């Protein structure tokens, strides 16, 4: 178990390094909300989800929908590390003729289950997937990652109502609650609180965790799987820009790329962290 957790921490660190390199190389993209979700994606793609990179369309696979589609770098990094496509693709992120679009395109990238980017819609489509899989009595589960600013979209609550109405116990939503959106702190732009109460009142089981604590993420996902009465949301308290100290909790890193010297600084910090993980 200890070894597995260390391994997942190393993977999350690797995903963060990819994010920095991709956004730096593209000179464009969204590092902050990619870094905040790295631990969650590491657990999903390298422990929890039943997926097969050699057979990406396997009917009973678990599905992951990145509803906060602007965090595409961390999704592409996880898919590449998991073997869905060659890692060389990552250097083509956001460039002309590349499969790795600014926001995920399911037609272009193996392992991307839904084209997302327009906020709220990924969650709605995830509800549709869960509904269809349940109709087929498939063992597959649907995981969907939402941003905290994203839940300001009305469609999120339409979809939440439907998920509870149809008792979609095969649906696990995860809220990447990093507290910042483009124009500032979410609580200043349009306060979503009380977030847990809202989801609970919409019929979701709510589990609140530290979204950078690997064992907590694992336990929450397991608990969601065991909740048979309906859908679950894991409210993951996270830090925007997590792992790169000059980006942490800084709203300006929502959607801007680091310059080459900042890329070097960020990578050396992440690499130092990696070496420290090994020592522990």
């Amino acid at each position, binding site marked *: 178990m200890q070894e597995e957790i260390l391994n997942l921490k190393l993977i999350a660190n690797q995903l963060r390094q990819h994010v920095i390199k991709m956004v730096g190389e593209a000179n464009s993209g969204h590092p902050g909300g990619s870094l905040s979700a790295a631990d969650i994606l590491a657990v999903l793609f390298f422990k929890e989800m039943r997926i097969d990179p050699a057979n990406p369309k396997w009917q009973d696979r678990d599905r992951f929908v990145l509803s906060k589609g602007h965090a595409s770098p961390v999704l592409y990094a996880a898919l590449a590390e998991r073997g869905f496509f060659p890692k060389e693709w990552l250097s083509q992120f956001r460039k002309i003729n590349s499969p790795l679009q600014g926001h995920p395109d399911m037609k272009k990238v193996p392992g991307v289950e839904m084209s997302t980017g327009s906020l709220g819609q990924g969650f709605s489509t995830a509800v549709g997937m869960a509904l*269809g899989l349940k109709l087929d009595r498939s063992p597959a589960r649907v995981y969907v990652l939402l941003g905290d600013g994203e839940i300001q979209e009305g469609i999120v609550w339409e979809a939440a109502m439907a998920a509870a109405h149809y008792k979609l116990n095969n649906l696990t939503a995860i809220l990447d609650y990093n507290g910042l959106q483009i124009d500032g702190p979410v609580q200043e732009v349009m306060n979503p609180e009380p977030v847990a109460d809202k989801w609970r009142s919409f019929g979701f089981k709510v589990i609140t965790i530290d979204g950078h604590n690997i064992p907590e993420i694992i336990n929450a996902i397991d608990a969601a799987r065991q909740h048979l009465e309906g859908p679950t949301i894991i409210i993951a308290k996270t830090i925007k820009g997590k792992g790169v100290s000059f980006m942490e909790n800084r709203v300006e890193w929502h959607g801007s790329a680091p310059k080459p010297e900042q890329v070097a600084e960020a990578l050396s910090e992440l690499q130092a962290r990696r070496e420290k993980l090994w020592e522990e």
Partner: protein
Amino acid sequence: MGGIATREAYGKALVELGQENPKIVVLDADLSKSTKTSDFAKAFPERFFNIGIAEQNLMGVAAGLAAVGKIPFASTFAVFAAGRAFEIIRNSICYPKLNVKIAATHAGLTVGEDGASHQAIEDLALMRVLPNMQVFVPADAAQTRAIVRKAAEIEGPVYIRLGRSGVPEVFSPDIRFEPGRGTVLKEGKDVTIVALGIMTAKALEAAKMLEAEGIAARVLDMASLKPIDRELLVESARLTGAVVTAEEHSVIGGLGSAVAEVLSEEYPVPVVKVGVKDVFGESGTPSALLEKYGLTARDIVAAVQKALTLKR
């Protein structure tokens, strides 16, 4: 107006499809009794999903169902389907080319008494502009059945425009439908009238009136608005030298625009449009509305006369 409404034929066709193909699922947004998806709901309750009054989610859920291999038909009134849910249709259905069929009822002015808020006069423009979307507008019950069945065979997004009111029979019950193929309903050499939906029957009526004046009109039904039958349009323009279009839709962005787009590039001839002239509708009976907003056979005759004066 007589005859069976296209929405009624849709409801019956869905039940047929449901019996033949277990992948067919149907979604509605609290209007199943009006859109006639209630027929399917009764026959296949486990494959019918009422999404409630939430048209954005209706389209998102339909996209998700398509992504796991279902063939969803999503229905609500045209104004909410194409209008309110437009951007979900764009980004979650058309961009990923998902296999969703949107069957929108209560299109156009013939919604009647509910008034302008419920009369979609812009849905064809909105749906036609989306890449990967195919747009079909049946003229009667038989054509509706053919279109709904074909839509289920097509891999990709389809928008089907249906009406509330009864329409006269135009086609024989065994009619076949092919995307990108128009139908010549009547031959004529002086002018071409291109119509779809409820205006097809009126175009035939207009052609009869024109005959009495010694004008021979070629009448085309263009149920497949997108892809449109470019060949048939060019052939007809070449043959007759003038074109009139007729649609229960704004003159901006619908059939008239589509025809003009093709002919201006491939065989320029005068194109005169019969449609709603960039205004909203109002409450009234369907026939009173068609009269007031210039969508009668007489209006088509007047447009033909104008087209003939423009003919070189």
